[in-house]
């Protein structure tokens, strides 16, 4: 018989919360009814802490990503100060500066999580150079019969990669290149339709943006192939 997990108590936004040891701050906050915004995290997936939208103040030198940071005893967490919100807003604006003008997901289902976040912050524009239509723009891939890929709408949240490789064990999607040039890739950076993709659809189910969508929604590939 396994021992019962040790319980720890911490304070989140002034609320005392008791959770089993090993619980992340994001999860503990959720249980306490406090929602911390995320783009890369999804409770079905192993957290990776890359979008940094869930940063919270735990009294350290820099903020911590709530989705990966485990709760500590007597910790005091602030999830929504002006400072924290300011940084989230800035991160949202950074992502928006490269985001295409049209999001298929937004038009089809209204569930584009990046655009919804931007609406929540009442962001009307971004102070940064427009990354769409630049030589660095990442283009689209309509080679799959089922899934439309808009690399420009990809925020490299890693959700599709974890869904493909860890939920479905299809092992098709990864990241290629690095830095600002990084993007998702199929097998050896093949077009999706020529890769070993079996069109299970898990990637587009977890995608938070207009990057991986159902072709039926978009007409993105229609008449182009």
């Amino acid at each position, binding site marked *: 018989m396994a021992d019962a997990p040790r319980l720890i108590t911490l304070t989140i936004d002034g609320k005392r919360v008791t959770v089993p040891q090993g619980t992340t701050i994001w999860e503990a906050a959720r249980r306490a009814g406090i929602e911390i915004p995320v783009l890369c995290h999804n409770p079905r997936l192993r957290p*990776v*802490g*890359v*979008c*940094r*939208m869930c*940063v919270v103040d735990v009294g350290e*030198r*820099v*903020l911590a*990503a709530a989705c*990966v*940071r485990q709760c500590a005893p007597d910790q005091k967490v602030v999830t929504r100060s*002006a*400072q924290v*919100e*300011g*940084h989230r*807003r*800035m*991160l949202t604006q*950074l*992502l*928006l*500066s*490269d985001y295409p*003008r049209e999001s298929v997901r*937004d038009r089809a289902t209204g569930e584009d999580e990046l*655009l919804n976040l*931007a*609406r929540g912050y*009442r*962001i*009307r*524009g*971004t*102070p*940064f*150079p427009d*990354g769409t239509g630049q030589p660095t723009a990442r283009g689209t891939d309509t080679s799959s019969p089922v899934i439309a890929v808009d690399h420009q709408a990809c*925020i*490299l949240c890693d959700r599709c990669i974890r869904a493909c*490789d860890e939920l479905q064990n299809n*092992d*098709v*999607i*990864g*990241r*290629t*290149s*690095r*830095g*600002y*040039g*990084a993007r998702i*890739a*199929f*097998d*050896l*950076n093949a077009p999706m339709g020529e890769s070993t993709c079996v069109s299970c659809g898990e990637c587009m189910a977890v995608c938070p943006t207009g990057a991986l969508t159902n072709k039926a929604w978009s007409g993105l590939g229609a008449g182009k192939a």
Partner: protein
Amino acid sequence: MELLTRLMELQEHHGAVTDEMLRALSKERGVPLYRLEGLRSFYPVFRAQPGPKRQVKVCRDICCHMQGGAGFVERVRRAVGRDAGGRNPRVQIEAVSCIGRCDSAPAATVNDIPVHGTAQEIAAFASGAKPLPGNEPAAAPRRWPTDPYPAPAERYGALTRLLRGGDAATAERGRDQVIATLKAAGLRGMGGAGFPAGTKWEATRAAPGAVKSVVCNADESEPGTFKDRLILEDLPHLVIEAMIIGAWVVGAEQGVIYLRHEYGRERKAVERALAEARARGMLGKNLLGSGFSFDVRLFISPGSYIMGEETALLEALEDKRGEPRNKPPFPTTHGLNARPTLMNNVETFAAVPIILERGADWWAAQGLRGCKGLKFLAVSGDVGKPGVVCVPLGTSVQELLDLCDGVAGGKALYAFAPGGASSNFLPAAKRDVALDFAALQQAGSMLGSGAVIYVAAGRDLVELGANVVRFFRNESCGKCVPCRVGSEKAVEMIEEALRGQPRPGLIPLLQELGSTMTQTSICGLGQVALQPILSVIANFPADAAGRLGPSRVKTGAPARKQTATKHAARKRMAKGQPAKKQIAKRRAAATHAPRRAAAKQPARPMAKARRVAGSRAASRGAAQRAKKTSRAARRTHAAPRAIRRARSRS
């Protein structure tokens, strides 16, 4: 290690790692194709297709940029083309990040052999017109004051005494003693973070779990940094001895030296030293009959600056893309293969034998001005005699300059970066500051990677700051949003400004962006990526004002208002007005965040130390200077003052 080593072999033998090779490897090892693509495309060493026979890599970073001038890589390219009559298909010329030869800038490699000189000279090496120089370790290694052994026969003395200590209880006391000595000596991590070595050894020893590892981080690659290169060439036995002692103390069974691939000469020196240690029975099974077994493996890095970050390095050793991990947990408990791992920098390890041989008091007494110990420093930039020196910790910036024949060409000193490219530029007025962890932090910069870059009067500091920001952008791994997107946008905006078209509100926007990157990036690279330019803005406001525009924020964020109209097509995003409340909120974010960065000191930055230093004192002094100089400058110190006000409220 196996997979990346195999890819390195393929690259070396075939000049490329092609799709066919990866497909074969995928079948042979049962590794998915996407993983292999991820590795090949991440590490700069690998190519998908073989290139020309002569591979020329020309450094584009700050020290080489200072000596070679703008457009140096282009000039080499033109010179090579002319040399062979038009385009030269036999030669491939590539601009690369710092290759650690800042003391012979401008530097390049031709088929991995370091060369340096004018564009014409490098072109001559590139085309084969001039034979390539040798690349062997020094036949007679230089003597350094941290080497306790006058003759090769006496090497491994400290280790030998520990291993021959006697029974188990004595050995255990010996381990306690080593940690106590390192603590008393005040030895701190020399990779840049300055974490107390004794504390790290103690934590790794206490961490449960096997198999433990000892890793030597020999991947220094921050522009201006090349001190470890000399240590590896001249004192590799000290590094190896310390790794063995470390393993004996913490109970590790395997060791790895993670060496940057550009260090070919040093690789040979380390390989020879490892062979020597093995021949003397210092590596392998049952060392000196003590029952303790340990061996060290040399791993050659497939490249990129971020690998010097301790967890990125561990990812590489686990055959993954070198993307830093979220910390905690730290390597002391969750290192290589999630097991406790003792990781130190080359210089830190190399200091251990002499501390154990001569004692903590001796080591502590070597420092100046209350600092403890000796320090290797890499000196470059506008200096008469660039190179590596080993001096008392606490030596001042001016004393070091005197030691290196002063400013090149007899010019006046204008500025200096005391701890590598990521450390804040300080004005010459601070030249008497001690090169020490605390003193530099207080002065608004950091000791960092022990690389002092001197800048003479007449230099364009904004351009140098921009060069360093570009370096961080180039070397961002791309894992987290603030660093991946933020560094790119910052570079684009700074380049607009350098072209004479700074966007309105650029300076406050860079300050705000820098604060978000500091607060939210996963690792130290993203955390300090904008610091070089921000330090120019804070400490040299007159320089910045001329190029980057005024720093005053009038109401809210004017830049946002303007671009908002430009992006009106995205109206769907929000129907509501950006209420005054929003603007106030933004302003709060802009002023609060820097205060936080300045007020709290880093608890545990990345191994290669890219520490964000609060520059309150610095910006005050600079602002005062600016006040005297010009009206333009008067307009610009508004922002630093605003930040200062915000800080003083804390």
